């Protein structure tokens, strides 16, 4: 039965408690096809993919591979059926090195005997080949992955999926943590896999990117399929329209010029092995971007400014007076606020409600000594409406919100402290287009109120669209600072990859 | 003819003696001084402190540390046997002259005792509820079931054939509990007027003696006599009865004659307790070592004395110095 598609899902449905996540989803896929799957946060993309991978049980519907119906009651069943998945939330073993992670669950043995000795050497060779030859990244093969950067870990996830040499490969937002270069690598690989007749499902919020590599795009909204069209008849606006069921106003809010009075002044900030002699001065209401590759020191710098990993040399002035940022509490005393990139790991308190998560950084608002639940509801409710957080009230468990909405709560948490300086690390990672523009608007508004914002991001378009000035870091140094309005993504990309000495210095450090 | 052990071990009960097995050490006259004596109880508590006092005094009489060097070790972890094995093996390697050990249970330490014996180190047992191995030289102390009998006998003597309801505080399940109960039941079973209406474990400790007694009296408010297999538990029971205003009304029969129990009899809170001759036991340990290793005389297999019941009538006759170590001059 060669005519039956490689994969066919029919009438898939899934509910969590009484919340319907998916309803009557049909999905057919042939070898050599790359299906783009898009939708707002919470649309159900990951849920659908997890069902296909056997990680979630489905409430209804059938799944057939090569015309043969399969049960898919466990991730193992998924793997056996030739389905590999890169999960949105990385699922690596922090204590294991990359080789051990790539082969986790299907370690190579000297023989079929279940207690046969493992062939560590072969696994390590294979892993090295995958990473450096196939993916073209240099990853320390024998360091526990907990010590590797997020993008390295993401590449290991990809290697893990490739290594399974499955026929159906699912990638759930694989590029969110990747740099420009690494993304290109990945797209090349996808093309190769496609040529090799594999079927790929590619989930992403970077629609432009997605249209570049997909042959077909499927759009989910509130757990239903609202469009399934060949890429030929699509463009970004059409896709976005389908996603949000209406047209989207401009993604970036119009720039508001910063005020004249200075706010933050950084001089000769250094931390061995992370960043070196960083200087810049920012005005109130200024949004300052920092671009740079993985390991360029940008978030180390950001975290140093928040007192998490203290800098070793240099000075920081806030409103003209010197401040010591040796500890997070110092930074918070100076009304610094920090939004970490890894929301799940460093941001949310999963056991607790939206209200709790929102107020935790500034419990003062709930009462001087006695915290009043009523006040918590009140404050939370006001921010929920102000930021347009989608959830059923302040009582809702934070973990029941979609990525984008969680991110808005994280932002609200800090806005509640009326920060002087807002430090954002990858503020829109994993956030859908609509939520993105909402987040930008919030940042913009904060700036307008005189808050100084520093944004670290791997998304150059974002930096140029949102910031006034963008600095580029290379190997721990700021190599240039450009004016966002007049610069191109290419410029940032160029400075990010090229050693400074091969360039003639651009402008003064302070722009 | 049997030598008169009574001269050496005052009040020894020869009727408790048993046959030699032939596998124990033969007496030897050792001239090296000081003799190294390892003393190894199952724990270091009120009771064994009192035994130790007897040991020290008797050593003093023989010239103190120049005559007998005393090594004391007691289990520190919950699993007493392991620690006792460790100590014994250390001492055997160290080549001590004699080991006195208290067995917690039947069959305990058999291999270690055999090993010591084979290494020419005589092993003396003390306060061991069930001594059943063929290697030890002498088992020093008293018959635990005699303790139970003494408690029961006191009840019989005090209440005659009056109907009496009894509540019993047992210790943790084990040989001490079972031996004492064995003796107690032997007597009581012959006197149907005594009814045991409640019998619960209180883990040898005061806090449990308190709560178990409270609960016991809730279920059986008509208990007239509270028997405890250890004064600690009895003292807990006393606290419970005080709270209920029953102290003095309900008779408490303890076991061990701890200082506090002794005082409680004077105040009338306790009716009786059994003194098991802890200090005398300690003295007898050293006397036995002296006989066996210094004089080279044979010893009986059992060096037991009779436990003594104290109540309001005879409590004044008890010598309070029997509780503490009183340095002795050489005799």
């Amino acid at each position, binding site marked *: 039965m060669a005519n039956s598609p490689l994969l066919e899902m029919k009438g898939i449905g899934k509910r*969590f*408690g009484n919340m319907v996540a998916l309803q009557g989803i049909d999905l057919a896929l042939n070898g050599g096809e790359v299906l783009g799957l898009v939708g707002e946060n919470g649309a159900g993309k990951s849920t659908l993919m*997890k069902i296909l991978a056997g*990680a*979630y*049980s489905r409430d209804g519907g059938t799944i057939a591979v090569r015309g043969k119906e399969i049960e898919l009651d466990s991730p193992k069943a998924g793997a056996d059926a030739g389905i590999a998945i890169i999960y949105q939330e990385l699922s690596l073993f922090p204590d294991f090195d990359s080789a051990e992670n790539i082969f986790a669950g299907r370690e190579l043995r000297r023989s079929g005997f279940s207690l046969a000795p493992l062939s560590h050497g072969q696994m390590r060779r294979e892993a090295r080949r995958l990473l450096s030859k196939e993916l073209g990244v240099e990853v320390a093969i024998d360091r526990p992955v907990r010590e590797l950067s997020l993008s390295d870990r993401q590449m290991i996830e990809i290697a893990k999926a490739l290594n399974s040499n499955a026929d159906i490969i699912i990638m759930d937002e694989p590029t969110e943590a990747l740099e420009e270069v690494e993304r290109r690598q990945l797209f090349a690989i996808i093309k190769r896999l496609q040529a090799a007749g594999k079927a790929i499902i590619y989930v992403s919020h970077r629609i432009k990117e997605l249209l570049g590599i997909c042959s077909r795009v499927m759009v989910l909204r509130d757990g239903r399929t609202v469009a399934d069209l060949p890429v030929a008849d699509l463009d970004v606006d059409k896709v976005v329209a389908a996603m949000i069921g209406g047209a989207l106003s401009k993604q970036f809010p119009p720039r508001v010029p910063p005020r004249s009075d200075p706010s933050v002044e950084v001089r000769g900030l250094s931390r061995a092995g992370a960043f070196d002699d960083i200087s810049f001065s920012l005005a109130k209401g200024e949004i300052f971007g920092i671009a740079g590759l993985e390991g360029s020191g940008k978030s180390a710098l950001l975290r140093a400014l928040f007192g*998490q990993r203290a800098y070793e040399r240099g000075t920081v002035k806030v409103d003209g007076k010197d401040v010591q940022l040796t500890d*997070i509490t110092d*930074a*918070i005393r100076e009304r610094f606020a*920090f939004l970490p990139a890894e929301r799940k*790991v*460093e*941001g949310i*308190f*999963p*056991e*607790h*409600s939206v*209200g709790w998560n929102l107020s*935790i*950084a500034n*419990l003062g608002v709930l009462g001087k*000594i*006695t915290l009043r*639940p009523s006040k918590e509801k009140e404050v939370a409710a006001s921010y929920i409406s102000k930021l347009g957080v989608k959830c059923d009230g*302040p009582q*809702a*468990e934070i*973990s*029941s919100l979609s990525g984008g909405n969680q991110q808005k709560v994280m932002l609200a*948490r800090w806005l509640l402290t009326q920060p002087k300086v807002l430090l954002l690390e990858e503020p829109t990672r994993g956030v859908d287009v609509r939520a993105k523009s909402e987040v930008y608007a919030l940042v913009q508004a904060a700036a307008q109120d005189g808050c100084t914002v520093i944004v670290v991001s791997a998304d150059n378009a974002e930096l140029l669209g949102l910031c006034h000035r963008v600095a580029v870091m290379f190997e721990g140094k700021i190599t240039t600072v450009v004016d966002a309005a007049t610069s191109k993504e290419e410029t940032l990309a160029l400075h990010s990859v090229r050693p400074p000495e091969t360039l003639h210095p651009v402008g003064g450090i302070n722009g | 003819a049997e030598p008169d052990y009574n001269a050496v071990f005052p009040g020894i009960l020869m009727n408790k003696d048993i046959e030699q097995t032939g596998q124990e050490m033969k007496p030897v006259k050792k001239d090296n001084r000081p003799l190294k004596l390892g003393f190894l109880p199952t*724990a*270091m*508590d*009120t009771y064994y402190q009192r035994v130790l006092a007897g040991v020290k005094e008797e050593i003093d009489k023989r010239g103190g540390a120049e005559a007998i060097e005393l090594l004391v070790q007691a289990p*520190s972890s919950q699993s007493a046997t392991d620690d006792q094995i460790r100590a014994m093996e250390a001492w055997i390697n160290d080549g001590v002259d004699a080991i006195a050990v208290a067995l917690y249970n039947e069959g305990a330490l058999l291999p270690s005792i055999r090993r010591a014996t084979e290494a020419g180190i005589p092993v003396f047992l003390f306060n061991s509820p069930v001594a059943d191995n063929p290697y030890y030289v002498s088992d020093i102390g008293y018959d635990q079931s005699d303790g139970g009998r003494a408690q029961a006998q006191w009840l019989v003597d005090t209440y005659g054939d009056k109907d009496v309801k009894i509540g019993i505080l047992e210790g943790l*399940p084990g040989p001490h*509990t079972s031996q004492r109960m064995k003796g107690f039941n032997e007597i009581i079973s012959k006197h149907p007027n005594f009814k045991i209406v*409640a*019998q*619960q*474990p209180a883990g040898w*400790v*005061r*806090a449990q003696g*308190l*709560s178990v007694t*409270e*609960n*016991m009296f*809730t*279920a059986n408010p008509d208990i007239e006599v509270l028997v405890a297999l250890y004064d*600690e538990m009895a*003292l*807990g029971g006393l*606290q419970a009865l005080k*709270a209920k205003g029953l102290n003095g009304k309900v008779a408490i029969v303890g076991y061990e004659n701890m*200082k*506090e129990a002794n005082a409680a009899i004077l105040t009338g809170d306790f009716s009786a307790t059994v003194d098991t001759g802890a200090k005398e036991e300690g003295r007898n340990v050293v006397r036995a070592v002296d006989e066996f290793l210094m004089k080279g005389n044979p010893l009986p297999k059992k060096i037991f004395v009779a436990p003594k019941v104290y109540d309001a009538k005879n409590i004044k006759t008890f010598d309070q110095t029997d509780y503490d170590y009183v340095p002795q001059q050489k005799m």
Partner: protein
Amino acid sequence: MAEVAVTRPRHAFKFGLASGNAGVYIAFVVLLIALGLAAPRFFTVGNLTDVLRQAVPIAVIAFGATFVIGMRGIDLSVGSTLALTGLVTANLLVLGYSVPVACLAGLALGAFIGVINGLLITKIGITDFIATMAIMVVSRGVVMVYTQGIPITGASDPAFRMIGQSYLAGVPVPVVLTVIVFAAAFYLLYYTRFGRFVLSIGSNPDAARLVGIPTDKVKIAVYVLAGVLSAFAGIMLTSRLESAMPEAGQGYELDVIAAVVIGGTGLSGGRATLFGTVVGAVLMAVVRNGLNLLNVNTFWHQVVIGTIILVAVTADRFNRSRKT
């Protein structure tokens, strides 16, 4: 995986009723009814008073343990702390110090042990389990050195006896004190910054640090709280017995953890229910009381206790999984 996000009403949880321990409440009620039928005297004022008083030491310590466990920590040293502080208090009284002085000294010692635990865990970075276990062993050792294995008796100062033995309007003072401690702990855990900090650390330590919670300070404070409450339990026990025993509180650490977990506070931290803890502690006392009332054979006690613990937590599990 699918059980990850079990959602339940927030307000219920804030008041410590949730963490889905309704299962335990049911098991508890069933047990009470069963006992009521089996032992007619169970439901007498006298007996219930006794049961409550017997539950006091475990309950008070378990309040502290609820904070510790809600913070994803564990404290094995509580039993030894109880013994040591009880002894010091008793000794000072015997030496003629006034009741307040003796008690404060005991509480201070409890706090001190808590500080040690906290410092070992935060500053040196020893796992809580091992740190508190070592402190458990050491303090028990100190007790032995200090007492030579002999109880300290004669802590019979009338004022001191009040604490553990007197009644207030028919309710035993220790029970009254426990209720007060409960109220305070309840307020502290659910209505103050400190309480939120504790549960935040239990929920996500990294995030807690990043929102500016002084995690080390909070941790130390929590172990101090645990130490002080253990000391308080020790003082009440000493007052009841008018003496202090070297072996007091042995094995309490497990009873306490059992009480907390039976109550519905998970060892994974982030959530804590003080109501549940009370139920857990009382349930344990009820079981032991029942064994005595029914005069159950000595040898069967442990089997029964262990089984009831299992039944209680199992009831809880099934109650939750139905929610998913």
